[in-house]
């Protein structure tokens, strides 16, 4: 079918326009405004005076901010790597099941993912409750038979929240891995078996390289998600020493909405934005390059 170039362009423009308008209005414009705001001493609402890079200098010497950055990075390390690895292991197991058992097990793993964070918080604060939490039976084993308030023990706080987060989001990651594993035909494994490859060799030589792109994807999605960690930390830390468990988004929230420091919060947001872009692009490129070797 022959159609004029012009009418094709018009159609394309019409189809793209709603997205471009919404993206520009709700993402590009606010991002630019935020960057501008970060160079002023504006409160949350209303204009401020131009202060150049002052806010950034202040962040660099702010103890609370450096704690927030460290906690965020620490949480990412504690949650992203395990959630990728555990999801792969679970997916490998689930993939070997057949028929309705596979559906049931997959559904069971996916179920926590549909829970809102408030419910997840309730479940696990009960599970770990110092007085009646069922998980205290396990905690006792490592604490000389004593109960321990996990979320009020600072060194245990981040690992515990990371554990809950891995549990919460596991189903989605498993689903991505299952999709990747199903793309590998059984005949390839049969061929490898005929070629003399053991179970382990089949995993390292066939499965692992072929699900590598999915691994990179899961890792990247989780990295971006966990750098923006806020809700779980906020809920579990409520009533405790909030400063010690502060994460970046929480810092931004506190500065902007509780301290009324719009400019400083905007500067912290820009730092987080740059951190996410740089980290995700760098790791994606690195991991992909390794896979393409």
């Amino acid at each position, binding site marked *: 079918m022959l159609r004029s170039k012009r009418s094709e362009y018009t159609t394309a423009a019409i189809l793209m326009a709603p997205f471009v308008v919404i993206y520009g209005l709700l993402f590009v414009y606010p991002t630019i405004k935020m960057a501008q705001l970060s160079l002023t001493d504006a409160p949350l609402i209303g204009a401020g005076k131009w202060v150049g890079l002052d806010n950034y200098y202040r962040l660099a010497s702010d103890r609370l901010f450096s704690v927030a950055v460290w906690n965020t990075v620490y949480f990412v390390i504690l949650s992203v790597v395990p959630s990728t690895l555990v999801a792969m292991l679970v997916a490998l197991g689930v993939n070997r099941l057949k028929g309705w058992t596979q559906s049931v097990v997959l559904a069971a793993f996916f179920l926590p993912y549909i829970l809102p964070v408030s419910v997840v918080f309730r479940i696990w604060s009960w599970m770990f409750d110092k007085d009646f939490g069922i998980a205290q039976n396990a905690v006792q084993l490592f604490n000389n038979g004593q109960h321990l308030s996990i979320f009020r023990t600072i060194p245990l706080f981040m690992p515990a929240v990371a554990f809950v987060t891995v549990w919460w989001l596991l189903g989605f990651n498993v689903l991505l891995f299952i999709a990747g594993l199903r793309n590998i035909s059984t005949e390839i494994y049969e061929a490898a078996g005929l070629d*003399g490859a*053991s179970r382990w060799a089949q995993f390292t030589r066939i499965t692992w390289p072929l699900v590598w792109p999915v691994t990179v994807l899961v890792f990247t999605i989780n990295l971006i998600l966990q750098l923006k960690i806020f809700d779980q930390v906020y809920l579990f830390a409520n009533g405790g020493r909030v400063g010690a468990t502060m994460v970046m988004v929480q810092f931004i929230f506190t500065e902007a909405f509780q301290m009324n420091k719009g400019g400083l919060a905007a500067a912290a947001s820009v730092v987080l934005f740059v951190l996410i872009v740089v980290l995700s692009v760098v790791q994606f490129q690195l991991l992909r390059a390794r896979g393409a070797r």
Partner: protein
Amino acid sequence: MSAVAAKNGEAAAPHVELRRVTKRYGPVTAISDLSLTVDKGSFTALLGPSGCGKSTLLRMIAGLEPITAGQCFIDNLDVTDVPPAQRRIAMVFQSYALYPHMTVRQNIAFSLSVAGQPKKVQNERALEVARILQLEPYLDRRPAELSGGQRQRVAIGRALVRKPEVFLFDEPLSNLDAKLRVQMRLELAKLHADLGTTMIYVTHDQTEAMTLADKIVVLDKGVISQVGSPLELYNAPANKFVAAFIGSPSMNFFPVDIAAINGRTASVVLPGGRTVEIGIAAGAGARSAELGVRPEHLTVVDPKDPAAAFAGAVAIIERLGNSTILYIETAVGQLIVEGEGDLDAKSGQTVGLRLNQSHARLFGATGATL
């Protein structure tokens, strides 16, 4: 007996043997109580329509499918419970099943690599195989960058490098276009002539089976219908299923009455009243049967010709150049006739048909040849 075995003056020895094997999937029986021997160095085709159990049979020989009952022998060794990798067999899959993330070289050398052979040996052997299959220019490409025919060759190369005693092919040419299929068929025939290895080849394409195999096993619903050389199956089918499956265009069938049986000949009344004598080997006492005649054993004659057994109207003419296929509407239904390339006929014309009765066959009520 294979050409190679004949050349070496050896007697054909059984190489692969299935003894009374049965395969059940839950309540479904795919193969029931089947026995089969494949001679050393032979090219045996397992032929049948889809769902007849031919691929299952091959996978049982490969060890990819557990055998429900019965035994499988390779070289007189019971391999029923031996894992696939230790059966000294290699298999080429319909989908090729190449490792998509590896180059052609790595695909071919994979079995050597997992066996811990040194890199140098892997390279030499891969190169050697690639030379035989004309894959040298593609050694560093990945399967996605190859054409269908090249992928097929890599799959064969992966089998070849292991120096197997038995090659198993599962419909290896069905994903190729018609021209390439003919070409690969020739290459496979050449490979078999060069290597002299036992090859077992699953196909639903009777042309492939007829051209490649020295022995064809026709399967129907998990049971062997007939085993024989291509011409045996063509000229002396054991039953109606084999008669109908082998040959293209397919054999014509129509019901006839048997007037009398006299030793090894039956007097058969054709539609229209004419009686012809047809040779039989069994079926004493039968009153009716189905007559089968191949398209090339019907000849178009003038309807008034005294030799015309019956008459009909030409419905469709297919001119293939070297032959002409006529579809003729007769009192017994549509018959297919194959004639000379320059056969003089027009659509709608009434023609007489002469029956070459020495090539006609009678099939009894069970489908078995009389």
